[in-house]
C-alpha cells in the first residue's frame, strides 16, 4: 500500500493549492532524506512519512527556518544540525517492563528454554534509552541466569545510547516502573535494584556488568552476532514495509536456531519474508521462535 495514499486519505484538502503545497513538502522531505543518506549514510527513506514529517517540521521551526529545503541546506553545510535532527527523528517511547504481560510471559515460557544454554545472548534492537535492557537484566538476574547472559542494546541515536549507559531514570517514572515490574512478575522488591537521589533512580552497576550498549543502525548496518533472543519492540511500526522486510531479514539472520524474536504488541511477523521459519511461540505477546532449518 502506498503511503502517500494513506497520507492523503488522512487529511481532507480544501483546495488544490494546499494539495500542491503538500506535494512540494513531500518532495522536500524526500530530498532531505536522500541528502542525509547520501551525505552521512543515515537512511530514513524507508520510515513512515507521517511521523517523520511532524518531527522534521518541529526541527525546522526550532532552527527558525522557513522551509525544509533550508533545513537540508543547513544539514549539509552546518555542523551540529544533523545531530539535532537525528536526535529528533529517532526519539521513541520506552519504559521499564513495558507491557508487563510480555515480560511475565517471557519469564514463564521463554526463560525455562534458555536455562539449558551455556551462554545466552540477547539483543535489544532499537533499545532507545535502555529501559527495556535494564528490565531484561533484572529479569535474568532474578532467574539466576545473569552470569551467563550477555545483553546487547543498540540504537541509532547516540544520545540515547549515552543515556542508556548511565542507567539513571527519572524518579517520577519509577512508580509506573514499579507497577510494571510487579505486574511482570518480579520476584524481589524493585527497590533492591536502585538507589535514588532527589531526581533520579540509579540502577546498580552490577546489573550493567553483562550489558553492552552500542550505536547500530538497523537500516544500514548488518548483523554483528548470533543471538538467542532478539527484542525489537515498537521499532518496526515506524518503518514502511520494504524496510520492515529488510530489518526482519537482518534479525532472522542474527537469530540462532531455536532463538526467540519478541516484537511490539501491535507488530507481527506476517510481513517477514522468512515468516515460515518462525513458530508462533506466545502469539498474544508477539513472541516467535525460529525453527531449526530442515535440510
Amino acid at each position, binding site marked *: 500500500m502506498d503511503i502517500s495514499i494513506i497520507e492523503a486519505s488522512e487529511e481532507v484538502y480544501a483546495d488544490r493549492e494546499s494539495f500542491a503545497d503538500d506535494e512540494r513538502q513531500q518532495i522536500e522531505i524526500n530530498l532531505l532524506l536522500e541528502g542525509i543518506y547520501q551525505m552521512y549514510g543515515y537512511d530514513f527513506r524507508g520510515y513512515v512519512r507521517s511521523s517523520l514529517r511532524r518531527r522534521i517540521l518541529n526541527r525546522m521551526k526550532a532552527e527558525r527556518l522557513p522551509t525544509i529545503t533550508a533545513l537540508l541546506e543547513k544539514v549539509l553545510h552546518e555542523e551540529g544540525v544533523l545531530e539535532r535532527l537525528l536526535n529528533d527523528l529517532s526519539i521513541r517511547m520506552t519504559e521499564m517492563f513495558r507491557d508487563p504481560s510480555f515480560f511475565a510471559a517471557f519469564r514463564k515460557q521463554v526463560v525455562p528454554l534458555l536455562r539449558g544454554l551455556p551462554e545466552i545472548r540477547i539483543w535489544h534492537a532499537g533499545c532507545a534509552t535502555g529501559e527495556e535492557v535494564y528490565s531484561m537484566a533484572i529479569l535474568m538476574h532474578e532467574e539466576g541466569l545473569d552470569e551467563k547472559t550477555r545483553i546487547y542494546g543498540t540504537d541509532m541515536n547516540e544520545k540515547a545510547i549515552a543515556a542508556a549507559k548511565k542507567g539513571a531514570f527519572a524518579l517520577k517514572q519509577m512508580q509506573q516502573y514499579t507497577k510494571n515490574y510487579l505486574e511482570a512478575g518480579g520476584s524481589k522488591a524493585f527497590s533492591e535494584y536502585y538507589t*535514588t537521589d532527589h531526581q533520579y533512580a540509579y540502577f546498580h552497576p552490577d546489573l550493567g556488568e553483562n550489558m553492552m550498549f552500542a550505536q547500530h543502525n538497523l537500516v544500514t548496518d548488518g548483523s554483528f552476532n548470533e543471538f538467542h533472543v532478539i527484542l525489537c519492540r515498537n521499532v518496526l511500526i515506524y518503518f514502511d514495509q520494504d524496510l520492515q522486510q529488510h530489518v526482519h531479514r537482518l534479525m532472522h539472520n542474527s537469530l540462532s536456531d531455536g532463538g526467540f524474536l519478541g516484537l511490539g504488541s501491535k507488530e507481527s511477523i*506476517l510481513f517477514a519474508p522468512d515468516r515460515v521459519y518462525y513458530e508462533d511461540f506466545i502469539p498474544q505477546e508477539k513472541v516467535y521462535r525460529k525453527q531449526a532449518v530442515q535440510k
Partner: protein
Amino acid sequence: MKGVNFPIQAKIFISYLAIVICLGISLFIVNGQMKNLQAEIDVISNHDMAVHELANQIQKNMLDMETGMRGFMITGDEQYLEPYQISSRSWQDNYNRLYALLKDNPDQQQALEQMRPLILSWIANTGEFVIQNKRENNETALQQYFAQNTGKNAMDDIRSQMSSLVAKEKNLTADRVAKLNQSNENVLYIWYVIAGGVTLISFAMSLFLSSSIVRTIRQVVRTIKDISKSDTGVDLSARIHVQSKDELRDLAEATNDLLSSLEKQSWIQRSLTEISTLYQGITDIGDLSKAVITVLAPKLQAAYGIVYLRKNAGNETVFVRVADYALAHQNTTDTFRVGEGLVGQCALDRRIFLFDNLPEDYLKVTSGLGEAVPRNLVVAPITVEGRVEAVIEFASFQPFEASHLTLLDLLQDKFGQAILNVLGRMEVERLLSESQVMTEELQTQSEELQTQSEELQMQQEQLRITNEFLEEQNLFAEQRATELKKTRDELADYARKLQASSQYKTDFLANMSHELRTPLNSILILSQMLMENHQGEGEEKEVEEYSRVIFRAGQDLLRLIDDILDLSKIEAGKIEILTDEVNVSEIPQSMQSMFEPIAAKKQLAFGVEMHPDTPSVLLTDGQRLHQILKNLLSNACKFTEKGSVTLRIEPAHPDRVRELLPQLQEEQVLSFSVIDTGIGIPCDKQEIIFDAFQQVDGTTNRQYGGTGLGLSICREFTRLLGGALSVESEPEKGSTFTLYIPNRTERQAQQQAAEQTAAEEVAAGGSQLLEEIESEKDLVVHIADSVPLHEQLFQGKHVLLVDDDARNVYALVTALERKGVRVEVAENGKQAVDLLLEDRSYDLVLMDIMMPIMDGYQAMKAIREDLGMTDMPIIALTAKAMKNEREKCMEAGASDYIMKPLNIDQLFSLMRVWLTK
C-alpha cells in the same frame, strides 16, 4: 645652592643687582678715562697756550727792544726807547714764566736756557751799546758797529732759536692733540667693550635665571603630564622630584601631597572597584566571601582574615565563618552569637574595632618555615540597610593604615550589597532552575504525549495492515491458533509441574528467611543507628535500649541458627549416628526430672508410662533419641494450656510397624508416644507441621512463638535412626506424637548412606540462604553517605508506620525522624485504618504484614476499598519475600514492598520514588 633656601625673588633681585653693579663699574671706568681726557685737554688749553703766548711775548719783547733801539738811534729821541725799556724789564719775567712752564720738558728748558745768554748778550752788546753810543753821539762806533752788524746776527739767532722752540712746542701740542684724539678713541672703545660685557653678563644672568626657573617648572609640568598621560590612565604613584629649594619645590611638594592623597583615594576606589568586579558571576555566598577576602587581605597586608556571615539559627542570629584567608586550624571559633566575642560585639555596635599590640599568644600565623604573631587586629561589620550582614576580621603584622580603615568602611555598602545580591541571585537561580526544570518537564511531557499518540497512531496503522493481511489468511490463522492452544496448554502443564517441583525448596527458603529476617531487621537497623550515632547526641539510655533490643534479637537468632544448623547438618548428612546400647529403663526418670518443673509451672500433670514388655536395652543413638523426645515433650508443654502431658513407652504394634516401616518387619521396634491435651492439630495441617518453620497456625497473626524447626529436626533424626514419627490429633482435644525406633543394625546404616545424597540438595538451599544473609550484611555496611539535597524529599513528609513490633517501630521511627519525616505509628491494621479515617493527608504508609487483630493484607484492602484511598502509596514491609507473599501484597493493594531485614538505604531510596509527586 644646596641646603640653602634660595627663592626665585632673590634670584631675580640678585641678577638685577649684578647688572646694576656692572653698569656702575663701567661708568666709573669711563669717568676715569674722561677725567684723563679732560686733563689732557687742560694741558693743551692752559700749558701749551701759555707757552706759545710766553714765547711770542718774549719774541715781541725782543722785537720791541730792537725796534725801540733802532728808533732811538735814528732819531735819538728818547721817546722811542720807551718800548725798549718796557720789554727789557718784562722779557725776564716772561722768560722765567716760560721756563717754569717748560720744567716738564728738559729739552725745551735747555733750548730756552741757551737763548738766555743770547738775549742778554744782545741787550748788552747791541741794545745798551747802541743806546750808549747814540747818547754819546759816538757815530763812528755806531758806524762801525753797524758795519759789523753783529747785533742783527744775534737777533736772528734768537729769532731762529725762538721759532725753533715754538715750532717744537707746536709739535708737542700737535702730538698732544693727536694723543688726545687717540685717548678719545680709546675711551669710546672701552665704552663699547664695557657695554658689550654688561650686555653679555645680563644676558647670561637672565638666561641662567630663566632656565633655572623654567627647567623646574618644565619638570613639574612634565611630571604632571606624565601622570595624566600614563598608560593606566593616571599614574598616581609617580612623584615630582625637584632639586631646587624654592617656591617650585613647595609647589611640587604640595602637588605630591595632593597626589598621595589622590593615590590613597584612588587605591581605595580601585580596591572597591576590584572587589566589586569580583561579585560578577559569583552565585555562591561562600565563593563570594572567599573571593573578597582573598583579594582584600593582601590589600590590607593582612596575614590572616575571616568572613563571618549572618545566619539565622532558629530564633537566634549567629555569625558563621564562611571563608578564611591563610588561616591555619587553630582554636578559632566558627560561630558567634550577636554580642558574643569581638565579632559579636562588632555586629552589635556596628563599628570597626581596631587593636594594636595584641598579646603574643593571641594568634599565630604559620607557614612551612615558621610562625609569627600578628600584632594588629581589625574587626569590621558589613552593614546594609541598617542590618549587619557580615563581619570581617583581619590580623596583620603591620599596623593598619587609615586608608585601610576607610576601605573597610566604604566596603561595607558594596560588600553588603553584593551579599544581598548573591543571596538574592541564589534564590532567583534556585527559582529559575526550578521553573526551568518544570518547563523542561512540561516540554518532555508534551513531547512524550505526542510521541505516545504518534506511536499509537503507528500501532493502529500497523494493526490495520495486519488485520487486512490476517483476513486474507483467516483460515490459516485459525488452524494455527488451535495448534497454538495445544502447545500452550502443554507448556502451562509443564510450567505447573516445574513450579510444584520447586515448591518445597521455595517454601523452605521463604520460611527460613522470614524467621531469620525478623530479628536481624532490628539488629541491623539499631546497630546501624548506633554506628551513625556519632554526633554525641545519643544518650546512654538510648544506647542501652538499642543494645538490649539487639541482644534479645541476637539471642533469638542464635537459637534459630542452632536449629537450622542441626537441620542442615542432618540434611547434608553430616551427623553421624553412634549406635550404642541405650538403657530404656532410664529414660522415664531423665525425662521426668527435666519436664516435671516445666509442667508444674503451667500447672500440667506430667507422667511417664512404661509397658512391662518393653525391652530394657535398645541399639540406637541415645543422644539423638533423647533429643527427639525432649523436642516432642517441650512442644507438648508449649501447646498445652491445661490437662496433662504423658510419655508412653511400649513395644510397637506390629501393624503400625508394617504400615510405617515396611522394611523392618523382623526387627524389634519400640514406640514412644507423647500424649497431650493441648490445642491439637487440624487434619489438613498434620502433614505440614513436620516441614521446617511450620506451625499449625501458619498465618500471620499467630499466638505461639518458636522457630517451627523442632518437629523438622525430630523427623530428620528419626529418619537417621531408621524410625518413623507419626501424629494423631484432634483440634482442641490434644495430640499424640508417636516415635518408632528400631534396633539399629548394620544393614540399616548402609541404607541410610544412600539417602544422604538426596538430603544434600536441601542442605545446599540452606547454605545458599546463609550466603544471602552474609551478602545482605555487606549491603548494610556499605551505606552510602546521604547528601542533604537527597533529603529534601523527606522534609516535612507525613508517614504512617504500621507495625506491632516495638523494636522495629523504635528503630524505624528514629531513622525516619532523622531525615525530617513526621512519623505516626499504628500498632495494627485496625489502628492504621482509624488514623487514616481521621486524617487522609499522609504522604506514605509503611505497612507491616504480620500483626495481631488486623494484619497488613486486611488493612491494605480496607484502605483501598473501604476508605477508597486508591492513590495513597502503601509500602508493604514483608518478612517472607516469596511468590505468595508478593502476590498477596499486590492483591491487597500494596504499591510496592520491601523485605525485612530492612536495608535502611533501600527503604529511603524506595521512599524517594513514592514521595515524588
